[in-house]
C-alpha cells in the first residue's frame, strides 16, 4: 500500500478498504526498517502518529472526514510542532521542544492528517545537498552515494522511498524543487504569501515559502490546498481564502497556453542531456496543445548573486536569536556573557550557517550596505520586472529545475560556489515571489531530472494543471528507485 499515491490512498480510505491505522502502522514499520540507509528522518513520532490515525479513523466513521483525513505525511523539521523536537537540522536547536504549532502544522492537523515524524534537512535550510545537517547527510534512494538535494532532502528521500505519500518542504532558493528534481518527485513552491510562514523557522524571510512534495502534481495540489490560506499571525500572508484546486482545475484546457522558454536558461553551461529532456518536455506540452514561445529574462545571470546577498543578510539577523539564553544549545561553563554568546553560537552552528551569517553581516555593515545590500535589492526588482515583462507574452515559463542531475555525496562540499550554482534556475522565482514547481522529466545516467514551471503571481493552479496533464501522458513520475524494490 506504500506505493499508492495520496489520491489513491484517499479513495481507499474513503471506500473503507483501508484504515488510517493500518496504513500508518505499515509506513512506520517501513521507516523503522529502512531509514537507517537513507537517514531521511530526524524524529519519528510513532506513538502520536498511531493515536492520530485512530482518531482519523473514528472521524471517518462519523462521516467527518475529508480527502486528507487519515493520510500520513512527513513534516520538514523546519516547521514547529508542539511537544515534538523542532531542530531545523541544527545542533543549536538539538533540544528545542516548540511550545506551539506552526500554522501549517495546525492546518494539516485540522485536516486530520497523520504526522509520521520530522524530516532531515540542511541546517536552517541552508544547503543544496542535505550534507549540512547536524544529523548527518541524507542519501538519495536512487543512488545511495548521491545527494538527494536540499535543503528539503529528508522530505524528498522519504517520499521517493515511499515512507509516506507526501511531505512538507520549504523553499528559499529551490529547497523544494531541487530535491524534488533529484528524487523524481513533484514539488511546488507557492507564490510568496500563499502559505503561512508562522512557525516555519525563518531563514530568509522575504524568500521563504512552505510547500508540498509528492509523487504527482495532483497530490501536491491536494496538499497545497490544505497548507494555503490567510494567516493573521503572519503579516506577509496574503489575505486570500485557502486554495481549492480540484480535478476541474487540473484538467483546465491547455489549448493555446503559451509556454515560454527563457533563452538565458539554455546556455552552454547547461548539460546537453538536460537540454534534451527539457526540449522533450516542451514537445510533450506542445502535443497537449500548448504554444512554445522563446522569451528572454535578461537579468537571470544575476539571480545567484542577488540571492547570496539578500538571503544571508536576512539570515544573519534572523539567526541572531540563537544565543543560548532562552532555549537551545548553551556552551558548557561560560566564563561570562560574551563567552556564553560566542561559544554557544560557534559550537551550535555548522560551517555553512556561520559562513552565511558572516556574509550577511558583511553586506549589511556600514560602508558596504549600499554597494551590496541596497544594490542587490534593486537588481532583485529588475529580475522581477523581467518576469512581469515575459508574462505579457506567455502564461507559464518552462526551464530545467537544475543544471545537472544529483551529484555525489561530498563532491561539492569543498566549494560553496559550486554548491550555490545548483540553484541557478530555481532562485529567480523566490526573488520574484512567483509560484514554481518541479516535476519529473526523465533520467540521465539513471538519475532523475526535473523540469521547472514558473507561473504568474497566484497562478499555482495553472502550473499544477500543466504538470498534471503532462503526467497523464508520461510516466516518468511513476518510475521507482531500485531501493524500493530491494527493500
Amino acid at each position: 500500500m506504500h506505493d499508492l499515491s495520496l489520491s489513491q490512498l484517499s479513495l481507499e480510505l474513503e471506500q473503507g478498504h483501508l484504515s488510517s491505522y493500518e496504513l500508518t502502522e505499515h509506513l512506520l514499520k517501513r521507516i523503522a526498517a529502512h531509514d537507517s540507509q537513507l537517514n531521511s528522518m530526524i524524529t519519528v513520532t510513532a506513538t502520536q502518529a498511531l493515536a492520530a490515525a485512530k482518531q482519523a479513523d473514528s472521524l471517518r466513521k462519523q462521516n467527518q472526514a475529508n480527502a486528507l483525513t487519515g493520510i500520513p505525511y512527513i513534516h520538514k523539521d523546519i516547521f514547529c510542532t508542539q511537544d515534538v523536537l523542532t531542530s531545523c537540522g541544527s545542533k543549536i536547536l538539538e533540544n528545542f521542544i516548540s511550545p506551539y504549532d506552526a500554522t501549517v502544522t495546525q492546518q494539516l492537523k485540522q485536516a486530520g492528517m497523520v504526522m509520521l515524524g520530522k524530516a532531515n534537512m540542511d541546517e536552517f535550510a541552508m544547503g543544496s545537498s542535505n550534507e549540512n545537517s547536524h544529523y548527518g547527510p541524507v542519501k538519495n534512494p536512487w543512488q545511495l552515494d548521491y545527494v538527494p538535494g536540499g535543503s528539503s532532502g529528508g522530505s524528498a528521500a522519504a517520499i521517493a522511498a515511499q515512507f509516506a505519500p507526501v511531505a512538507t518542504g520549504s523553499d528559499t532558493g529551490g529547497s523544494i524543487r531541487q530535491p524534488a528534481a533529484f528524487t523524481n518527485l513533484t514539488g511546488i513552491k507557492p507564490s510568496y504569501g500563499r502559505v503561512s510562514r508562522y512557525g516555519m523557522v525563518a531563514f530568509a524571510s522575504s524568500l521563504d515559502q512552505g510547500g508540498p512534495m509528492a509523487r504527482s502534481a495532483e497530490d501536491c495540489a491536494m496538499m497545497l490546498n490544505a497548507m494555503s490560506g490567510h494567516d493573521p499571525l503572519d503579516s506577509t500572508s496574503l489575505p486570500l481564502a485557502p486554495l481549492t484546486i480540484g480535478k476541474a482545475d487540473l484538467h483546465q484546457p491547455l489549448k493555446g497556453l503559451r509556454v515560454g522558454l527563457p533563452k538565458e536558461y539554455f546556455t552552454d553551461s547547461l548539460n546537453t542531456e538536460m537540454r534534451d529532456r527539457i526540449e522533450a518536455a516542451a514537445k510533450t506540452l506542445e502535443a497537449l496543445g500548448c504554444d512554445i514561445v522563446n522569451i528572454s529574462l535578461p537579468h537571470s545571470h544575476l539571480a545567484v548573486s542577488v540571492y547570496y546577498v539578500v538571503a544571508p543578510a536576512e539570515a544573519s539577523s534572523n539567526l541572531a536569536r540563537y544565543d543560548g539564553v532562552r532555549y537551545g544549545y548553551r556552551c558548557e561553563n561560560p566564563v561570562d556573557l560574551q563567552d556564553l554568546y560566542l561559544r554557544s553560537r560557534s559550537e551550535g552552528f555548522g560551517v555553512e550557517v556561520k559562513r552565511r551569517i558572516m556574509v550577511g553581516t558583511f553586506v549589511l555593515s556600514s560602508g558596504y550596505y549600499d554597494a551590496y545590500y541596497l544594490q542587490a535589492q534593486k537588481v532583485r526588482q529588475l529580475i522581477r520586472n523581467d518576469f512581469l515583462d515575459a508574462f505579457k507574452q506567455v502564461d507559464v515559463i518552462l526551464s530545467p529545475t537544475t543544471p545537472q542531475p544529483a551529484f555525489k555525496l561530498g563532491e561539492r562540499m569543498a566549494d560553496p560556489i559550486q554548491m550555490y550554482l545548483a540553484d541557478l534556475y530555481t532562485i529567480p522565482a523566490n526573488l520574484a515571489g512567483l509560484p514554481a514547481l518541479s516535476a519529473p522529466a526523465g533520467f540521465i545516467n539513471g538519475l532523475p531530472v526535473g523540469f521547472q514551471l514558473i507561473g504568474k503571481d497566484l497562478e499555482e493552479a495553472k502550473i499544477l494543471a500543466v504538470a498534471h496533464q503532462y503526467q497523464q501522458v508520461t510516466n516518468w513520475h511513476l518510475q521507482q528507485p531500485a531501493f524500493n524494490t530491494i527493500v
Partner: protein
Amino acid sequence: MQCSEIFTLAKLAHIAVTDAEAEYFATSISKIVQLVHELNAVDVTGVAPMTQPLADVEALRPDKVTETNQVETLLANAPQTAAGLFLVPQVIES
C-alpha cells in the same frame, strides 16, 4: 578578504572563530564577495529597492490581549532559570 576582516565580522555576528577558521572563511567568503561584486556593474538608475515581493498588503492587529501567562511552558526550554527568570552570567552594566 583578510583574516582581520573575518574577525571583525565574527565579532559583530557574535561567533568565535579560531585562526584556522578565519583563514578558511577568508578564502571562501572572498569568493562569494567576488561573485556578488558583479551586481555593482548593473545600471539600476531609477529602480526602487525590492524588500518584499508583496506590495499592497496591509496587516494590522486589533489591540487585544490574546496571550495568557505561559511562563512554565516557555521557560521549559531554557538552559538555566530561577524564579521565573532566564539566567545568564552577570551583565556588567545596563
